[in-house]
């Protein structure tokens, strides 16, 4: 058997541990998540579901009239280690045409922590920005 490539110790499987293979179980992530801050100016709601083995995310942005539906896109799920079977984090990327938003999130103790990394492509002069938001089910 050839040795597995790695770039840090955490990439290596523990001895006597077989690689889990297959998709991570997204049960800890799926559902509807609401911003803990009722006055949130960023993402106000996240809907996550599994379909055909894929994790799908739908985000809603804050808007004075009604939440702005960003649409549903595929997300990548992550476990807590190379031997994990349960997903506890995800990433996804929205391309709105004038703005690219990376979602990078993890769940911990019943809270979903979402980081967004936002890059404007419309030459509007707005700075690319980062935000960090918290959600509960």
């Amino acid at each position, binding site marked *: 058997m050839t040795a*597995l*490539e*790695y*770039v*840090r*110790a*955490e*990439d290596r*499987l523990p001895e006597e541990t*077989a*690689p*889990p*293979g297959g998709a*991570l179980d997204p049960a800890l992530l799926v559902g509807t998540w609401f911003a803990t801050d009722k006055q949130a*100016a*960023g*993402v*106000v709601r996240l809907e996550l579901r599994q379909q055909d083995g894929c994790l799908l995310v739908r985000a809603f*942005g*804050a*808007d*004075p009239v009604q939440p*702005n539906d*960003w649409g549903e896109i595929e997300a*990548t*799920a*992550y*476990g*807590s*280690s*190379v*031997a*994990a*079977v349960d997903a*506890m*984090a995800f*990433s996804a990327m*929205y391309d*709105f*045409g*004038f*703005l690219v*938003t*990376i979602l*990078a999130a*993890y769940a911990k103790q019943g809270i979903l922590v979402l*980081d967004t*990394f*936002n890059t*404007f492509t*419309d030459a*509007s*002069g*707005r*700075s*690319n*920005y*980062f*935000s*960090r938001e918290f959600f509960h089910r």
Partner: protein
Amino acid sequence: MSSLQTTRTKDKPQPGRIGLVLPVNLRPLLGGWVNYDKGSTGIQRLEIDDWEGTPVVRAFGAGHPDPIDWGEVAGAAFADGVDGHHAVAFTATYHLDFATVLLAAYLNKRLLVVDAYSTFTDGSGRASYFQRDHLYLP
């Protein structure tokens, strides 16, 4: 003037700030960052330089006997809002032969919190995984 497109309230600049085009100042991110946890199995060290306004990231992973040099990649810097001009976060993506690693990092006071989202592309069966490290400037 046409109104700006937005996806959420945060995308809107403060009145009077539109058109103030300033590059994001990378200085808060620059330098040689070291993992607070000497026993971390993740990223042991990060070097961030400024290349004409773009953050260039060089990560070193935990390895024995020496840290593993991932090489340099160009990243992207982010302010704390559309009117902000000081970098508080960055992303950088490594496309390695066997894996893709998204580094998504932000400053929290004097710590750099680095989240690594790793996906293996080598068919090894290893699970994609998330790992967090806290780094400081010595």
